[in-house]
């Protein structure tokens, strides 16, 4: 059911939600940018509707709410391993439509092959997702080209308009709060986002593209900082890490932390062997995962065209431009891209 709500009603509704569970939303984080006087939009807990950043795209995606940057898997002593309590029992996450498409890609990995990931499930299955509507998207968005501009089935939807907000509620706790505000019911159907940026996305990428010269330019350009992976709503990789406490060397924790396929060490094995040494190879590995390999396994492209990697890259490497180059390379090697 859709409702028209005012700024103050939204404040009251979010306050009501946050009294019941953790509420995460993109929010202006003062002094979090690359230099301390730059503000960025990132995911954090909110208590009021006015804290939601509607007019900017978040730098980091929603994923840290359910897949923390660093997550403790076990507390251990010499011969015992104990699981920690989950970060929350229930949560509501506000996210863009592309990010909800991204969630389905994380599900592909974390729920695949009948092997449910205990820690992912603990948070993901206790989270409600409310989509923040986009009309035109932002400059670097290409979700339309990636087929991820529509609004998938979700627990709620909110669109900021000149005269307030449109809110759709698909769960009781939210509906009750909306009704308490005596919000006016309206007819409303969300529409897919539109982008100015259009990208030619290849349907099928022939194997030979992996050895195409298009990857060479990244050898000189990429500084393998990994930011493109960390902001991506669909990057799912992690590394396990054990730490022990200074005050008691027999106790410690096992964690998993986000990993980046662009950074040194990602492929290292014993004997000094590493499988992708050049930056170009790493870019190729990432790009083909997003556009070919995830699809080869799970039937859909991994990249949802959110443009976050373009926004964050300190070297102005554009992934949407890379997609176009891949499409061109497909033609050159005689594929049907």
């Amino acid at each position, binding site marked *: 059911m859709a409702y028209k709500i005012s700024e103050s009603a939204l404040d009251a509704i979010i306050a009501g939600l946050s009294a019941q569970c953790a509420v995460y939303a993109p929010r202006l984080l003062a002094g979090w940018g690359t230099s301390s006087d730059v503000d960025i939009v990132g995911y954090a807990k909110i208590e009021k509707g006015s804290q939601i950043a509607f007019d900017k795209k978040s730098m980091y995606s929603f994923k840290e709410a359910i897949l923390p940057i660093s997550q403790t*898997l*076990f507390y*251990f*002593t*010499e*011969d015992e*391993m104990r*699981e920690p309590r989950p970060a929350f029992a229930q949560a509501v996450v506000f996210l863009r439509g592309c990010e909800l498409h991204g969630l389905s890609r994380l599900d592909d*990995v*974390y729920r*695949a*092959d009948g*092997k*449910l*990931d*205990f*820690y992912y*499930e603990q948070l993901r299955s206790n989270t409600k997702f409310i989509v923040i509507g986009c009309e035109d998207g932002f400059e670097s968005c290409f979700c339309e080209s990636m087929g991820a501009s529509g609004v998938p089935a979700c627990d709620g939807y909110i669109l900021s308009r000149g005269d307030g907000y449109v809110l759709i509620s698909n769960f009781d706790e939210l509906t009750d709060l909306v009704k308490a505000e005596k919000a006016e019911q309206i007819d409303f159907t969300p529409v897919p986002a539109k982008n100015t940026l259009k990208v030619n996305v290849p349907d099928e990428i022939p*194997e030979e593209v*992996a050895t195409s010269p298009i990857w060479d330019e990244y050898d000189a350009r990429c500084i393998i900082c990994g930011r493109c992976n960390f902001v991506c709503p669909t990057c*799912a*990789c*992690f*590394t*396990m*890490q*054990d*730490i*022990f406490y200074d005050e008691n*060397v027999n106790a*410690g924790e*096992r964690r*998993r932390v986000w*990993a980046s*396929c662009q950074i040194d060490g*990602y*492929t*290292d*094995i*014993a*004997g000094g*062997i590493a*499988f*992708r040494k050049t930056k170009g*190879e790493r870019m190729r*590995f990432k790009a*083909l*995962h997003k556009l*070919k*390999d*995830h*699809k*080869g*396994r799970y039937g859909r492209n991994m990249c949802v065209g959110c443009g976050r990697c373009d926004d964050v890259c300190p070297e102005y490497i554009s992934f949407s431009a890379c997609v176009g180059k891949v499409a061109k390379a497909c033609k050159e090697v005689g594929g049907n891209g």
Partner: protein
Amino acid sequence: MDNLYKPFLSKILKVNPHTDIEYTFRMEYAGEVKPGQFFEVSIPKYGEAPISISGIGDGWVELTIRRVGKVTSELFESSEGKSFFMRGPYGNGFDLDLYKGKQLVVVAGGTGVSPVRGVINHFSRNLGQVDGFSVIVGFRSPEDILFSDDIALWKENKGFTLTVDHASEGYTGSQGMVTKYIPDIQFKDINTAQIVIVGPPRMMTACAGAFIERGVPEENIWISHERRMSCGLGKCGHCRMSHKYVCLDGPVFNYADAKHLVD
């Protein structure tokens, strides 16, 4: 819901040191397991490391461990009667039934001998199950030779070759890369012979090339990959090649598929 990351404690039944830096640990384990599969050995404070199963017996598995990182170094401090954490077994392993009734050739180099040790032991003891069995095993130098006890048994099969890349003067055994001995193999039926190759990436490519040159169909060649692994469950991403996870879909691959996989 099961927590697949949670390891179990397993007792060390026996420790067999091969060299100063390579030990085989016989660990209590009762579940089903295949040669070529692996366990994540899990040492609190030091982390986890994937270790291939080098031997299988009634109620135990053997893990041959090389002292290379902090996890494995810590293991060398363990002794019989103690326990350590592990989880698994993971991966597909070798399907021995595929080789039965056919000529089998196994080529292994260095620590690559460990994942196929179970295969070699099985058919050395059951020569009647294959129609001819050749084994070429290579190590860097005489000091690097692993599984000397097994090799004593394997040598009884006349199709067995042990070679070292380099040796100091006076060494009487065979020398040179494993590829040097591939042309000597007598094939009964090149179309059905099965080849298993395990070792460093370049060695596997070179050997596969040598067999293909001799006319062995790609579909008859099996290799086992070693990659960086964190989870063993197809989640962490480290071991991925194209759309395959080495930890789930491998580590054993048919060469006809493997040659299309890109790191």
